[in-house]
């Protein structure tokens, strides 16, 4: 990489690493794992810098690497999708959940959503990806994104139903 390219890469990492790690954290729920995923993705970006010329594509590239690495880790890392029973609808529980304790509960609830579905939800409703963009990031069809989104939302509703009413801040 030329010095001017490296300088631009440094600026990109400095500007974007925190936000990318935040997205990774939403997907995996663990700051250490999120940091590892983002570092891995940034290293790949370093190698692919010239191929990812358009600045607008860089975030997408890193998120794509993060989400695929995360799903791959879930498959290889002995974490397991588990079916869970139906809970009463209680989505209002999230309305005021902002304390650290409440956030921990939300993270625990999110951990019950299968990795691919959770990643799909984060891309769609946190990163505001379109179905097409999410399909590209997840390396699947738009139909799969739609079905994963629907299943993920159902799983989220059920997972949130299991948490207690939040405490007021």
């Amino acid at each position, binding site marked *: 990489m030329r010095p001017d390219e490296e300088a631009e890469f440094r600026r990109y990492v400095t500007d974007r690493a925190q936000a990318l790690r935040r997205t990774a954290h939403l997907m995996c729920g663990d700051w250490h794992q999120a940091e590892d995923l983002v570092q891995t993705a940034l290293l790949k970006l370093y190698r692919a810098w010239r191929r990812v010329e358009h600045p607008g594509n860089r975030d997408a590239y890193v998120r794509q690497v993060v989400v695929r690495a995360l799903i791959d880790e879930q498959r290889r890392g002995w974490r397991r999708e588990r079916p*869970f029973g139906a809970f009463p609808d209680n989505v209002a529980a999230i309305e005021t959940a902002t304390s650290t304790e409440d956030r921990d509960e939300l993270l625990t609830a999110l951990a019950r959503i299968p990795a691919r579905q959770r990643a799909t939800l984060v891309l769609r409703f946190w990163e505001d990806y379109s179905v097409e963009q999410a399909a590209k990031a997840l390396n699947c*069809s738009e139909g799969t994104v739609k079905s994963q989104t629907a299943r993920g939302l159902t799983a989220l509703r059920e997972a949130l139903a299991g948490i207690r009413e939040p405490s007021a801040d």
Partner: protein
Amino acid sequence: MEQKAHDVFTRLAAGEEPPLGFTADDVVDRGRRQARARRAATVAGAAAGMLAVGAGVLPLWAFKSDGRPAPPAPPGATVIVPTKPTALRTSSSEDAAPDPGCVADLGRLDPSEGHFEGPEKTAALQTCRVLKRVDAVLDPDGKHLSNASPGFHQPSPIDIINGFSSSGGMTTFDGVESQIAWTADGHYPFKNDNKPDMSGPYVQVWITIQAAGGSDPYPSAPDHQINGQSGSTRSWGPTAVYTLTDGSKLTLTREQDRVGAAALATHSYPSGNRLLLYVNTAQDAGTGSLPFTDDQLVAAVDVPGIEDVQLPIDSGRLPASAPPSPR
């Protein structure tokens, strides 16, 4: 619910964050080192490999066939083994009826959860009996293998995960992956929340049934684990290859170092379908070795019936079901 999802992520993201543990300079430094290492490996790789073999310093793995040790081969080499291990069975047609245990397992799943309906259910039943046969070879007494899914002690239809994807108006069945564990006492080493619940070292056992054209689902390098972290980056040992009379190919490769071991056995059928068995040690500390013999691993993937398994269409394609539209 979509707005609620956004709210959940917004609230979570608003929390305190630990400081970043790396800087842009760190990433650049690592990127440079990796680039240098790749360049060095490209230049020196072939010559280094030949020197190592000539000096006899690399661990060699002798594949045993019919009790006779095969000539040693360097890691990564391919060894054509003309004779079958004694435990190897001849692939032939067998009763294609669903295994009663699989049917029972499937019946225990709650249909209200939306699992295993339509083609997924069909494929799960068809592949489950193959999983059970692998299980029977690896654990003939039924004392050591346990399933990640609570209440399912052996591979079952519930192991069908990530097997379906849709593209071009078709739903493609890519395969089944079963995750089970071998322990000395048969106790599954994790609790329902995935937290460790170990009484000793364990071995991860991954069984994959894959329709033709699927990509390799397992790491290209052995990957046993220590304390939950990858414990090896060494290359595989030599690969033993059997060719059966029906044109199927069985391969087996393994790796053992001072802290752990891994092995990969594959049965590639003439149709392109594959049965893969990946096992690796995982423990908190100490030396890990696999509890399976070479013959056992090969025999485990010499499962007749994958040709009989009617992946809904030969290529593994299923009619697509209309996915629910989220928006």
